[in-house]
């Protein structure tokens, strides 16, 4: 089972992307998935979490995630003790930043940085980085098929916004793959 934790702030789409990943993995990749938010009232700007579980078998686990394979941070101001919880030796931490080195210095796990805010501004005109970070995750890990992610995006957004997000997604996948 792959377990993913998304860190963002209310309004940044951290749960939406947790759900997009689950949708891609389940409906389009034919696996099983679970996605859920950090439970409770949603407040714009407050730190929030999204979770995705992916497996080849039906997922019955209803407990919270205690360890994560991938941690994705949509907003680097959230860096702190919370993002380091439940990391395994081979976990990957993906962060929206221009300076991944300073975060890498604090962790033994692999930290990957992506200037997702700039890319989102270029492609969407707004600093919503969730699909860019999803693209980076897919490019690095191959946890789901890229086509499945794009189908999930198409499925979940209106056509105009989906188009822009898919363009951003494609750009990020290419960009990250060329680095890997």
């Amino acid at each position, binding site marked *: 089972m792959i377990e993913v934790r998304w860190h963002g702030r209310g309004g940044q789409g951290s749960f939406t992307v947790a*759900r997009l990943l*689950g*949708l891609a993995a*389940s*409906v389009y990749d034919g696996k*099983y*998935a*679970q*996605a*859920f*938010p950090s*439970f*409770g*009232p949603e407040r714009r700007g407050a730190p929030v979490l999204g979770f995705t579980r992916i497996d080849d078998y039906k*997922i*019955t*686990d*209803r*407990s*919270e995630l*205690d360890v994560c394979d991938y941690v994705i941070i949509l907003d680097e101001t959230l860096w702190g003790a919370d993002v380091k919880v439940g990391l395994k030796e081979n976990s990957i931490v993906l962060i929206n930043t221009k300076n991944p080195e300073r975060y890498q210095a604090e962790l033994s796990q692999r930290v990957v940085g992506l200037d997702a805010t700039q890319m989102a501004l270029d492609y969407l005109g707004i600093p919503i980085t969730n699909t860019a970070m999803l693209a980076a995750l897919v490019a690095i890990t191959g946890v789901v098929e890229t086509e499945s992610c794009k189908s999930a995006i198409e499925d979940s957004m209106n056509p105009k916004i989906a188009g822009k997000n898919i363009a951003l997604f494609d750009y990020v996948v290419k960009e990250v793959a060329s680095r890997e």
Partner: protein
Amino acid sequence: MARRFVSGNDAVAEGVRLARPHVISAYPITPQTIVVERLSEFVEDGSLQSIYMHVESEHSALAAAMGVSSVGARAFTATSSQGLLYMAENLPYASGARMPIVMMNANRALATPWNIYGDQMDSMFMLNSGWIQVYVEDAQEALDMMIQAYKIAEDPKVLTPFMVNLDGFVLTHTYEVVDIPTQEEVDAFLPPINLSENIMSMEAPKSLCITAGNNYNMEFKIKQNEEMIESISVIEQVDAAFEKQFGRGYNGLLETVDCEDADVILVTTGSITGTARMVQKTLRAEGKKVGLLKLRYLRPFPTKALTEALKNAKVVGVVDKNISFGYEGTIFTNVNSALMQEGASQKVDNFICGLGGRDVTKENIHEMYEKMLVHLETSADVNDANVASKPQDRIHYMNVRCAL
């Protein structure tokens, strides 16, 4: 059939859409809100031909549903927690009138302290309300039970309101893959509502929700109880018919996992069952003779099936996401009573956990099994007063953040 990635609340709404109620009367409350949002969207976009009543309270939500049902139309409502308690006086009203209303309840903690997260204190309050109560494990079961609920509730032998319980957030807000049947498939399974005996109609005017004094009242209540107990067979038949038509069933009122030769069996309801399945499987793989019993219905209570499934066990553990203050977990009380009726002599443990949305981890469930296995090896009978077995020792609070 469509395969979709939806939340438990979405699954409920989809199930309700497929069941085609005539009228929906509901009041929003966390964590049920998404159900009423979706249903009002379905009414708006025309995919559900229902009247959506914007009632001003939960009390009126169920009262209006009673009005709807009283003329023989299909009614749906949904609530949670304080909302369920606010409509409390109407629950026995509806069941005494034998109105086959279906309600979704998002299990949530009760104030105070205030808390919006999941536990089962709310519906446990309503065990005596005369409603059928089922607890579902995942979003698929939630959807399927909305359809089964109407079929069971409207059966002429049953005619009893039906409460489908989903753990708040853990089920209501978790997205997972759900197979959504087609309208044609559901229509073939669930025919239009057709009531005659207990409704107001122009053909045979009736007086409903009448008074019956001390000279007649008791017989009405006995009839209600006897017929609720007999609904067990209808519940089993409907689930079997559902499985035949849709290719998935839930084994009636309870499901057993490796219970036949198990020395210790954990009894769970609702979503915890899923987590317990993983732990039970792991322990079996280690050679430990452990079983799991998923108790789906609390009313009617499946006394016979339960005691039969538990009869070979030496230790039984009951998981409760509730406390009956001054006593113990409510399901524990019910299971004990069933075991006593059958003259069984298992050792019984009560695991109280998950209150106010406290996480129930795999380790917690592992610990429950470990405690039961210790009991198994204790030669003394825990029910013997000479052993350390004061009543409170049978209660184990799980995942508590400080010393007791």
